[in-house]
């Protein structure tokens, strides 16, 4: 691992240091709050923790890590699956066959060849070296490659049309995390008449329901007081967007968040959720006089209003929909709800914004953590305990 990689993927650095240090997954299993962590729930589908800087990036391609308070957060990795990497998708990415097996050389002069285990571009004609890998729409892929021996031209490297490097990038190993937009994606060099070498090309799926924001103005910022860590949403346009979560058809789910509201908007603001009016999902929302926990069934909606809500006060709110279903907010009696009061989510997961009843509201405040799981009642209550700890309430 290069120093550059270590900067971009500090979590990976931990894993690369060998058994003397705790691996990423081992660190996450260290009992922090009464021995419970969200990963203790087998059905965990989304865990977002701003205290783990290795999961946040300033750009939506995961190339620039969040390192300081005030940095924008464009990509927030879901750690519910331990950031497990899928199988290698690139054929002969290390060119160990000694030839271009698996690759297509589109240069008119057949410029690419394998020399000393690297693909070398002779740079005499137009065209690229490429191969196409199968991808899942909306899934995220870790892309890695090494470039060297650049002596002419301005080569670059792309995956799914996204620049992993630009024409000015120096020799070295580069990584990025790219969301696939279709069922296949090209891995390709770019840079006509460039003299350079490429090696160790890798594309692997990163498990999880990751949140992203491609629009710079709509990115929340990372903030900390040295003890607590949170995402700051501006109440104007900030929101992180995830996929439509696949819960496998489960109806027993828990969704919760720990947060502080800094200011009320003129309409209710979504804190975290994937609810669509009477059509599935769960949402935590904030209005001028209450915290609302909303869970939907196909054709019915269940709302619990916990009031009053104070600006600057820390709350944990959670909706649980299985046997013994309830809605919860810190400091208020919880409200029992009909069992199985939700159908599978039908809209994308949103952190910092919500849509319900035709209106959309952006959250103005701080989010300390957010979790989403297929769970039973005991696990849902454990999540409340965890969220309270993350927000400094217990």
């Amino acid at each position, binding site marked *: 691992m290069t120093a550059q990689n270590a900067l971009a993927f500090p979590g990976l650095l931990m894993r690369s240091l060998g058994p003397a240090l705790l691996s990423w997954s081992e660190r996450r299993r260290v009992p922090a709050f009464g021995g419970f962590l969200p990963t203790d729930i087998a059905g965990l589908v989304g865990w977002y923790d701003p205290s783990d800087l290795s999961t946040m990036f300033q750009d*939506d391609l995961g190339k620039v890590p969040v*390192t*300081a*308070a*005030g*940095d*924008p957060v464009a990509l927030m990795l879901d750690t519910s699956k331990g950031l497990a990497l899928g199988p290698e998708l690139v054929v002969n990415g290390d060119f160990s066959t000694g030839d271009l097996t698996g690759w297509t050389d589109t240069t008119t002069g057949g410029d690419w060849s394998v020399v000393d285990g690297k693909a070398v571009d002779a740079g005499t004609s137009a065209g690229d070296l490429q191969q196409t890998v199968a991808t899942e729409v909306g899934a995220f892929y870790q892309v890695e490659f090494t470039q060297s021996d650049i002596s002419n031209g301005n080569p670059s490297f792309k995956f799914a049309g996204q*620049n992993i490097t*630009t*024409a000015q990038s120096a020799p070295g190993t580069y990584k990025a995390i790219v969301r696939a937009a279709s069922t296949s994606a090209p891995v390709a060099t770019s840079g006509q008449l460039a003299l350079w070498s490429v090696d160790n090309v890798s594309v692997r799926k990163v498990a999880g329901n990751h949140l992203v924001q*491609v*629009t*710079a*103005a*709509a*990115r929340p*910022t990372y903030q900390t007081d040295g003890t607590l860590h949170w995402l700051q949403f*501006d*109440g*104007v*346009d*900030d929101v992180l967007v995830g996929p439509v979560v696949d819960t496998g058809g489960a109806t027993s789910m828990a969704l919760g968040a720990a947060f502080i509201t*800094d*200011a009320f*908007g*003129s*309409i209710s603001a979504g804190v975290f959720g994937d609810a669509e*009016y009477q059509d599935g999902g769960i949402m935590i929302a904030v209005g001028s006089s209450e915290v609302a926990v909303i869970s939907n069934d196909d054709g019915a909606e269940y709302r619990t209003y916990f009031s009053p809500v104070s600006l600057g006060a820390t709350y944990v709110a959670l909706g649980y929909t299985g046997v013994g279903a309830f809605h919860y907010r810190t400091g208020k009696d919880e409200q029992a709800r009909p069992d199985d009061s939700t159908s599978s989510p039908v809209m994308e997961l949103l952190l910092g914004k919500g849509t319900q*009843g*035709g*209106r*959309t509201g952006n959250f*103005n405040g701080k989010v300390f953590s957010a979790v989403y799981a297929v769970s039973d009642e005991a696990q849902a209550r454990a999540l409340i305990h965890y969220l309270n700890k993350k927000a400094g309430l217990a």
Partner: protein
Amino acid sequence: MSTDYTYQAALIVPAAQADAARRIAEAMGWGPGNYSCELTNGTDTFWGLSSVATDGFVAMMQDPSTVELSEGADSAQFSADMAEVMPALLQSIEPAGGRSQSEQFNALCAANGLSRVQGEET
């Protein structure tokens, strides 16, 4: 470590300049879909954004020639869009942290008689 994002900006454009303003943002590497907050003065539609910003952005607003365009951006189109947008742009740019971004944005709206457009509740 300290952040490079030491400023916060609230920017608003009339609807007629919104497409050009979004092209400017995209040419600067801000991605698509900026100016997503719909506003109205009761008659006309405006679009606004609230964001943290770097020294480079502030320098560009004062002198557009300092801009570093993203790869593939059309510099001639950028210059044309800047000429169209800047005279109509409502802006508030200040060091980050003095007040919240929403307070800054709301103050710019209030100073120009603008309020947010809300969807119809169904």
